[in-house]
């Protein structure tokens, strides 16, 4: 093996750049990732243009854009897209605002700072099914939940969270999981803020507000955009939290795109229709991904 490679290297006219043939080291990763990227996607595309229903095997053949036409006429698609937008948008606003404020707060010196920071980032490491069930049962349950107990204690009517405010409940749970993520990233970013720059601004008479808006926030802008993009990719397909709490309901109140595809494909077994939905999800995610890759690549060039 090696001798063969060596002879070949020796007989080949010398090129100046590559001294070792590293392709055998690289190609396994490239190959598996390529397969992973292309095979399921090609299948989704293929299924989206055929008639394929696991419950009705007589339905076969090329469907053209039938599944898409069906999908776009279905009010459930538009509801689910709207719900996805509401969920992603609300969680992004909450996590970025709180994440930024917390980063500023926990960057101050105070007693027990290290431990307090650990407590704030803890929810990010809790598996989604646990977080959702703890909130659904122990916090938000209309009879036995802690919030209901507190409401009863002060003489209020307990709130039936998942019946009356289903989307808000899901937003609260998801935000609780992702605020720590935004906080962790932004805290790391804020720590790289130049102390001299801060000192200079202070000497020039900048108050805390001016410091925040003219020094801290601009410094954090790139980290914030990274947080927004990464969270968007994950939030676009929030699934487990809905699976264990509302199952998309009541009605379609918490059906996002991920839940719609799941319920059409794996509960109603309409593969063609669900695959058309999958293609929509891929397109949406790719729009976001385009911007993320651009940011990261700019970073790569700087390094």
């Amino acid at each position, binding site marked *: 093996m090696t001798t063969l490679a060596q002879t070949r290297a020796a007989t080949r006219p010398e090129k100046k750049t590559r001294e070792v043939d590293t392709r055998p080291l690289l190609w396994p990763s490239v190959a598996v990732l390529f397969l992973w990227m292309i095979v399921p996607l090609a299948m989704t595309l293929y299924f989206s243009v055929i008639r394929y229903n696991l419950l009705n095997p007589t339905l076969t053949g090329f469907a053209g854009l039938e599944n898409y036409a069906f999908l776009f006429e279905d009010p459930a698609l538009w509801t689910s897209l709207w719900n996805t937008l509401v969920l992603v948008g609300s969680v992004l606003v909450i996590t970025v605002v709180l994440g930024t404020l917390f980063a500023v707060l926990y960057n101050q010196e105070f007693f027990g700072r290290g431990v307090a920071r650990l407590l704030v980032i803890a929810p990010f490491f809790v598996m989604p099914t*646990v977080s959702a069930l*703890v909130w659904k049962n122990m916090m938000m349950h209309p009879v*036995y939940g802690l919030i209901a107990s507190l409401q009863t204690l002060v003489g209020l009517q307990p709130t039936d969270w998942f019946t009356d405010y289903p989307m808000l409940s899901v937003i609260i749970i998801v935000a609780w999981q992702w605020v720590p993520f935004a906080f962790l990233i932004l805290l790391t970013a804020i720590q790289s803020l130049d102390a001299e720059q801060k000192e200079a601004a202070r000497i020039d008479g900048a108050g805390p507000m001016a410091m925040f808006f003219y020094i801290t926030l601009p410094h954090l802008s790139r980290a914030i955009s990274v947080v927004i993009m990464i969270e968007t990719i994950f939030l676009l397909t929030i699934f487990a939290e809905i*699976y264990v709490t509302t199952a998309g309901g009541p009605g379609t109140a918490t059906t996002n795109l991920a839940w719609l595809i799941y319920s059409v494909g794996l509960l109603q077994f309409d593969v063609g229709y669900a695959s058309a939905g999958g293609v929509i999800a891929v397109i949406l995610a790719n729009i976001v991904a385009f911007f993320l890759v651009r940011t990261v690549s700019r970073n790569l060039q700087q390094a």
Partner: protein
Amino acid sequence: MSNSRQKLWTTALAWFIALLIFFPIFWMALTSFKTETEAIATPPSLFFVPTLENFTEVFARSNYARFVWNSIAVSFGSTLLALAFAIPAAYAMAFFPTKRTPSTLLWMLSTKMMPPVGVLIPMYLLFKNLGLLDTVTGLLIIYTLINLPIVIWMLYTYFKDVPGEILEAGRVDGAKPMQELFLLLIPLAVPGIASTGLLSVILSWNEAFWSLNLTSSQGAPLTAFIASFSSPQGLFWAKLSAASLMAIAPILVVGWMSQRQLVSGLTFGAVK
């Protein structure tokens, strides 16, 4: 004077928020030591005799050990497999970069952008036909693939920081690329490889899209087991809490220890 008062306020506010955010986890931990009756008592019982009953019952009744084992197998198995693929690749790209290296890295990152739900249906059918539904092997393959880009990226970042002179010296002494990799680079990069591995373990351990969709009992990890508590029949909050506490405690500790490295891993090196 005003400075110390400000500090007092900062301390109070920061601790109040920290405790508020951590509270659901604390409450869950507390509930796991209650009896089922105390767990749903209104007003909630704050003073109770702690019991370990829930833990023993979770272990005894629900094949808990199997779910724990499945979680360990998929997260550590997929991590080792991902490292086996990623270490040579990251080594090649970090030390023998070509003109195409940056675009290869970005392309690898972009495979991470594929929304899982976009390929859920074909993966489900593929797994069904291959007999991989509800198996540890199937989940392990998926987790390896979804974490591979992050693992390569993190390792690439770490390898970049390894002083090239040491490897250069080895090369001058006649080390072949494989020797250079195994005898020089890997020992030097152990901390980086370890924290990359930890991130991969954490992400796999908590993954709950593929585990819920592709497994149900035999191959199900803890995420799917916990989800089975969502059925409305019966209120087993104390047992749910005990099972949850055991499921999250180890990974919480690991996460706390490696938070620094997590940031660069999760942001693909964009924030350090």
